[in-house]
C-alpha cells in the first residue's frame, strides 16, 4: 500500500511518552570555498510541551544552524546533514519527504527571527502577510483570512489592530514588527516555536514587552519554546532548561537554576563571570581569554581547551563526551567535578 504524507506525519497531540521534539546527534556541515565547515558536531537536546529550552551560545557556536535544521530551511547544498535525527513526536523529520515537511513547517513548528524588518515582505500589508498563513495552509477566503489576521494582531497586543491591518511593515516600529512576526508564527497554533534572538535588535523596554508576550502565549497554548540567544539575562528570566553551545557542540545541559548557581563547564562558568550586572557593581570582570574557535580550523580535543583555565594534557588530545552529572544535567568537560567544586556554594 502506498503511504500518503498524512500517514507518516505524527498525530496531532503527541504520542504520550515521547518528548515533543528531540534532536539526536545532529551534524551539519557546509561546503565552502575555503573548505568544509563543520557547524554542528553532534548536538542532542529534547523539548517537552510547555517547556522553554534556551540554547545559549556566541556567534558561530552552531545554535542558529541547529534551529534551521529543525525547521528544514537550510540551503542544501551548501549545507549537508551527514548524521543525526530530529524527532518530532517520534517521527524523524530528516527522513520525511519535502512535501511532508512543508506540512509541518510553519504549521506545527514555527520560527521567529531576529530581524523582523527583513523577514517581512515590504510590498504587502501586514494583514495580507498574516492572512497568508490561513490562505495557504487552510485554504481560507481572503475576507476570512483578514478577519483572522485582525484577531491575531489583537492577540499579540498591537493597538488598533483593525485600522492597522492594512499598513505596511515599514509603518511599524521595531517592537511592533516583532509582534507581527510572532502573530504570523503562532497563527496555526504550532506545537513548537523556535525564537532565534527575538529581542537582540530591540531596546530593553521593548525586549521586556516581547518576552512577556511570548511567555503569555506559551502559557495559553502550552507550546514548547526554543529560545536561541546569547543573552544570559533573558535566559535567566524565562528558561526552564539550558543547552550551552560552543564550537558546534553542546558543552553543558542543565536546568536553569543549577547552571547559574553551579556551572559545570569552564565556558559556562567563564561567561557567567564575564558579564557585568545591573544589580551589582563588581570591581573586575573575569575575561575568558582568547577568541572563539575558527570553524575551519578547530582545535584538537576539546574545542575550548585553548581558552580554558582548567586545561590538562588530555584536553588537547581527547574530545570530552557529554558526562552525566545527574539525570537532568551533563557537561562536556573532562574535569567537570573540579569546575563544579570550584564554585563557592
Amino acid at each position, binding site marked *: 500500500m502506498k503511504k500518503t504524507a498524512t500517514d507518516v506525519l505524527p498525530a496531532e497531540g503527541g504520542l504520550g511518552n515521547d518528548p515533543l521534539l528531540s534532536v539526536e546527534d545532529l551534524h551539519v556541515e557546509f561546503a565552502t570555498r575555503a573548505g568544509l565547515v563543520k557547524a554542528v558536531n553532534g548536538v542532542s537536546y529534547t523539548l517537552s510541551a510547555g517547556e522553554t529550552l534556551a540554547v545559549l551560545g556566541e556567534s558561530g557556536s552552531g545554535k542558529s544552524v541547529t534551529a534551521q535544521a529543525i525547521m528544514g530551511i537550510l540551503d542544501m547544498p551548501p549545507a549537508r546533514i551527514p548524521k543525526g535525527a530530529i524527532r518530532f513526536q517520534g517521527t524523524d523529520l530528516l527522513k520525511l519527504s519535502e512535501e511532508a515537511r512543508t506540512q509541518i513547517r510553519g504549521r506545527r513548528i514555527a520560527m521567529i527571527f531576529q530581524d523582523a524588518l527583513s523577514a517581512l515582505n515590504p510590498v504587502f500589508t501586514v494583514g495580507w502577510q498574516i492572512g497568508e498563513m490561513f490562505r495557504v495552509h487552510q485554504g481560507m477566503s481572503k475576507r476570512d483570512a483578514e478577519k483572522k489576521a485582525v484577531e491575531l494582531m489583537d492577540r499579540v497586543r498591537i493597538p488598533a489592530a483593525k485600522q492597522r491591518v492594512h499598513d505596511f511593515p515599514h509603518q511599524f516600529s521595531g517592537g511592533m514588527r516583532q509582534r507581527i512576526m510572532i502573530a504570523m508564527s503562532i497563527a496555526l497554533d504550532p506545537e513548537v516555536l523556535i525564537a532565534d534572538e527575538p529581542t537582540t535588535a530591540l531596546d530593553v523596554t*521593548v525586549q*521586556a514587552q516581547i518576552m512577556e508576550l511570548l511567555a503569555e502565549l506559551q502559557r495559553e497554548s502550552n507550546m514548547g519554546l526554543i529560545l536561541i540567544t*546569547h543573552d544570559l539575562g533573558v535566559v*535567566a*528570566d524565562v528558561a526552564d532548561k539550558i543547552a550551552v553551545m560552543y564550537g558546534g557542540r553542546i558543552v553543558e545541559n542543565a536546568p536553569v537554576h543549577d547552571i547559574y548557581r553551579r556551572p559545570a563547564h569552564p565556558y559556562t562558568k567563564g561567561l557567567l563571570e564575564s*558579564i*557585568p550586572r545591573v*544589580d551589582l557593581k563588581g570591581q573586575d570582570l573575569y575575561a575568558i581569554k582568547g*577568541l*572563539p574557535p575558527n570553524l575551519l580550523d578547530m582545535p584538537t580535543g576539546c574545542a575550548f581547551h585553548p581558552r580554558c583555565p582548567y586545561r590538562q594534557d588530555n584536553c588537547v588530545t581527547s574530545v570530552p563526551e557529554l558526562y552525566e552529572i545527574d539525570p537532568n544535567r551533563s557537561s562536556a568537560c573532562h574535569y567537570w567535578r573540579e569546575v563544579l567544586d570550584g564554585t563557592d556554594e
Partner: protein
Amino acid sequence: MAPTSEAILKVRDLVKHFPLTQGIVFKRQVGEIKAVDGVSFDLHRGETLGVVGESGCGKSTLAKVLMALEKPTSGSVMINGKDMAKARGGDLKRMRRNVQMVMQDPYTSLNPRMTVGDIIGEPYEIHTEVAPKGDRRRKVQELLEVVGLNPDHINRYPHQFSGGQRQRIGIARGLALQPEIIICDEPVSALDVSIQAQVINLLERLQNEFNLAYIFIAHDLSVVRHISDRVGVMYLGKFVELGKDTAIYDQPAHPYTQALLSAVPVPDPEGREQRERIILQGDPPSPANPPSGCRFRTRCWKAQEICATEEPLLQIRPGTSHESACHFAEAQDVVHAG
C-alpha cells in the same frame, strides 16, 4: 575613581536639530528632528560618564556633536576653557587632538584598504607635530602592544583580525594622540559576550594608565553600570536623570529610569517569579514632534495635568540625592526589589 580636579569638558545647553525638508531642487523645511535638545553636564579628568538611553534618544547625535562632527544648533562644548563648537580650521584641528572616539562597529570603522600600521599611524600624519616621522612606526608598535596586539602585525589588514581585535585597533587609533577625553559610542555592543569583558577590562586599564576621561554611550545598562562613575539617562534628546552610578542604579528617581532598570534582565534565575517589572506601554514618541511639558508623560504611570503644561527641569528634588527631571520624582530601588 572619584573626580578630583576641575572639569575638562563642560557642555552647556547643547541643542542639535536636524531640519526635515521636502522637495529635491527647491527644498523647504517642513519641521525639525530635535535629536539633542538642551543637554548640560561636566566631565572631570579620569572620570567615566555613562550615557544610557534607547535607540532614537539622541545619544549617538550627542557623541557626534561632542566630536565636532556635527555643528550644534546652539549651546557650547568647552574643552579646557575653549569652545569646540565655535572653533574653526587650525584651532579645531588642535582641539581634536584632545578628544578622540571609539566607534561601535569594528567591521566598518577601519578602512579595509589600509594596513593596521597606516590606520593607527594616520593620526600622526594628520597632526605631524605630535611625532617626528622616524618615530612613528615605533610609536604605532608601542600602541599595538598597549592594546594587547602583536606589534609584528603592523603590516596586516583589518580583515585578518577578529571583531575584538579590530576593536583594539580602533582603541589604539584613539589613543595615538594622547587625548584626555575618549568618547566611546557603543564600543562593545557588536562583540560576542566573551569578548566584551576583554574590551571593557582593556578600557578600564587604559583609563588608569593614562588618566583618561570617558564618555561611555551604550544601551546596555549593565555594562554602563560596570564602567561608569556617573550616569546620565537620556530620553528624547534630554537628560531625565543625572547622578553618581550608585544613585542612579540603586535610588533611581525618574519613572523612566525606573522602567528602564526594571526591564533589564538579571542573569540570575533566583526569585524570578517574585520579581516585579515595570513594563512600559507603547513606543517613544517621534523626536520630530515631542509631547508638550514632560516628554515622558505619554508613557508615564504618574502623569498628572502639570506634566502636560510645565516642563520639569533637571534639578535635585526633595527626598533625592541627585538631579532628575520629574515633577513627582521619588527614589525607589527597582533593581534589587523582589
